[in-house]
């Protein structure tokens, strides 16, 4: 049984690593369609990674070891996060090592390292990006935590697998508090993954960029890892959303044979397809906010999450 569990665990992680760029590519494709552009192929992110891995690294003269370590740490953190989230099955041994709060911690670790790396070179853009990203971070994190709190209160556990199991078992899907939480979560997701309306992943327009500004000095394999990590992050966020709000199809404990797993993968892919399209739609419909509007936006998300919590306490107790 343990061997099977380990297989499930590693399989899930490998799956996440493998299809994360695909998800990013799918969103880009949808966006292009919605904007009536010729879409890049679905495999564009993979080609990009391959190209980057082959190039020579051009490292800034006074970059320190921290700068060179960061891509690996970033990637590692995101992989670990993927290992925690029950995207296809809930019986994950690693999810007990780190619960959802640790998950937020891992996201924070990644962010801090990337910001530090961005400051390491000592360029104007790098440090500016670092500052802005940290700002988004400290505003988004409480909102995310409140969203998770909702789920914790419903399930009585901070471990995501337990949350999923509880939700599939009791089908409190229709709990109104989750509605608020879902909207809040979506807003946080957009903000945290450098999406419109907070950031635009496709731009190098210097004054508005956040994520790109931090990655400016990275090249070749370092850049590849950074990009892959951000793909993974988006993927992870999507999976968190599924786990919290759309937990159908995830293979729960005791019912996770091969068939169930295969079904779970299929359902996951379907959910990703829909979610990617939805994200693209949202992104296409909204305009990028000025950086100083970001706090208002995230405060809104926070407020919604808290409202969800209060609704739960008022109606659910």
């Amino acid at each position, binding site marked *: 049984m343990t061997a099977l569990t380990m297989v499930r665990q590693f399989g899930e992680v490998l799956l996440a690593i493998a299809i994360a760029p695909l998800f990013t590519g799918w969103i880009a494709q949808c966006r292009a369609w919605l904007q009536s552009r010729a879409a890049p192929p679905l495999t564009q992110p993979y080609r990009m990674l391959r190209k980057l891995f082959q190039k*020579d690294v*051009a490292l800034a003269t006074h970059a320190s070891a921290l700068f060179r370590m960061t891509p690996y740490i970033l990637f590692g953190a995101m992989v*670990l996060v993927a290992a925690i989230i029950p995207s296809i099955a809930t019986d994950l041994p690693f999810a007990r090592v780190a619960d959802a709060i640790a998950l937020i*911690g891992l996201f924070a670790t990644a962010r801090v390292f990337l910001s530090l790396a961005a400051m390491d070179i000592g360029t104007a853009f790098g440090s500016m990006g670092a500052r802005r990203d940290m700002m988004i971070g400290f505003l988004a994190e*409480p909102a995310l935590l409140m969203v998770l709190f909702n789920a914790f209160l419903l399930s009585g556990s*901070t471990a995501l697998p337990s949350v999923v199991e509880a939700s599939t078992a009791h089908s409190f899907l229709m709990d109104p508090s989750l509605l608020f939480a879902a909207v809040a979560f979506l807003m946080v997701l957009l903000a945290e993954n450098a999406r419109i309306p907070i950031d635009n992943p496709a731009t190098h327009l210097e004054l508005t960029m956040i994520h790109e500004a931090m990655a400016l000095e990275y090249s070749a394999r370092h850049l590849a890892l950074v990009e892959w990590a951000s793909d993974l992050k988006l993927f992870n966020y999507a999976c968190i959303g599924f786990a919290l709000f759309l937990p159908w199809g995830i293979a729960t404990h005791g019912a996770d044979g091969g068939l169930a797993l295969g079904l779970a993968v299929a359902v996951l892919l379907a959910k990703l397809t829909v979610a990617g399209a939805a994200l693209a739609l949202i992104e296409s419909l909204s305009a990028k906010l000025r950086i100083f509007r970001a706090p208002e936006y995230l405060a809104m998300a926070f407020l919604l999450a808290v409202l969800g919590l209060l609704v739960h306490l008022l109606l659910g107790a």
Partner: protein
Amino acid sequence: MSLVEGTSQSVVAFSKHDLSFLLMLVFGWVILGIAGLVRPHRVGWIARILFPLGALIALGIAGLGTLALFSGHAPQIFLLPLGLPNLPFHARLDTLSGFFLLLLGMAGAGISTFAAGYFRSGEGTAPGLLCLQYHVFLASMALVILADDAYFFMVAWETMALSSYFLVTAQHRIPEIRRAGFLYLLMAHIGALCILLSFGVLQGGRWLFTFDAMRGASLTSFWASAAFLLALIGFGAKAGLVPLHIWLPEAHPAAPSPVSALMSGLMLKTAVYGVLRITFDLLHIRYWWWGVLVLGVGLFSALFGAIFAAVQTDMKRLLAYSSIENIGLIFTGIGLAILFEACHLPLFAALALTAALIHSLNHSLFKSLLFLATGSVLHATHQRSLGKLGGLIRRMPWVAALALIGTLAIAGLPPLNGFVSEWLLLQSFLFTPQIPHAFLNMLIPLGAAVLALTAALAAYVMVKFYGVIFLGQHREPSLVHAHDADWLERMGLAWLSLGCIAIGVLPQLALRAAGAVTQTLLGQTVNLASPFWWIAPITSRQSSYSGLILLAGIIGVVGITFVVVRILAHGRMRRAVPWDCGYPWQTSRMQDTAEGFGQPIRHIFGPFFDMERELPFPTDAAPRYRIHIEDRMWKALYLPIARGVQQLADWIGQLQGGRLSTYLLYSFLTLIVLLGFVL
């Protein structure tokens, strides 16, 4: 004497032995201090011999503290033949004091080792005197923790304030430092008076000042609350709870760095200890509103500290505000524990208290580490202003690497220790819906949100701190000559960072230590049955965490990634000038500054600040940007008090108008009025 073959009688004897040995160690600190006066200007004698010895004593104290935690003996009491008549100094060693002694010893050892390399002559007070003050400070902190009667406690408490005051003003030729010292001692003294009055209430009119008698005193609800409030004010002033924090950002930066580390890392914890001792041990919690009060103050302090830390431009001030934040977190935990206990939820109370205790321990480690690191930076560069530092990771790799650990730990990132306590704290917030008060149920989740915001802000602050000091390019050309810390300093820093890692990776150890305390205070511990690499404070279904496996996971994944990348790709690399979007002529002045990092905070949390800004115009020949930020508390609370005192003093001063007739009139009127009384 062997523990194994001893009867219960001899176990008691051994444990008595324990406490007296502990007191001897504490006394050893005083001796070391006095030894410093023998040759007050010989740095070699003081730094290379006395301070390392002090560190050894600290280790011994930590060891004995641990023993007290885990030996399971009944509390040990020892009477010193000193003190007031009928009230000899009572010393007592129980698990609570054991825990704080452990904290004191662990951090103290690191700080003393560092100080051995740090203090040198020619900086204000003579090294010998400094040595005396330093060790008296340490000893008085230990005695505060050991004291078991009100008088002994107060003597140790005020000695602590006094010795640290002298340490703060070591460089007394600088007026700001004198001002800071004055403010510090004043607040400390007023706080101490409040504590004293609290003891006055606690003795319950029986004139028994031992804590033992106070435990048994029966107080009415009014008096119990009065004692609690007075103690909260008194200890809050020492801990730096907002709005009594005003001295803290002045005094901590003013002191030499090892002293800042002692004050921030250890002294603030004695206030935590005091609150725990009085609230949990002497008063036994009574009312849930105490908890709400402490919780509210704690959360506000935490947020306030984090926000202000984010806008600081002086590295030590930044850390000082960060201390306010962390103290706020600790008090948040304490508040929750009081609340739960008052609502008869002892398990959750134990969880919250565990969180508070572990955070105290953590804070003492990483805050000392960071303050010491700033000390090294200060010695290497003679700069405290963040605007004049930068890029030191290349000049001071050791300090930078060790400070990075502290930075990540204080930012609350897994798998280091800061995360553990924040995790526990958030866990305990999850149980607030079980409190049988509807309004609190609604409000306290907001507390969790504030906590999350604070934690995230702390990360922001620490990125700023570390990034501006150690990363980027040198903002001043002179920084090229900065040198790394010497080996003693490195050892001190390494010891502290080791502690950060150890607690982060093996939180179960800290959990067990705190468990011994909660067992004493609440009669309940969190679930301690997990193996040593694992914590699951309530049940493992509820939540669990393992720092060790997480660390292993990170190392594993990063290692595999590295190897795979190396195998599949190649390792070619060349050095080039930074690209920076292709903009040429980048200078080090174009990096984001500490002020720049403060800008979003100033924007978002504007109402908190009292800002004074001077902005340049596009047409200015010599553009200048200046911003001055004041604490609103200062204007709102302290200046009116000062003005009031001044006005009252002026008004009263008119009594002494210089005219003899008026004076005679006073006498006459007094006479008449008094005669009226007896009429």
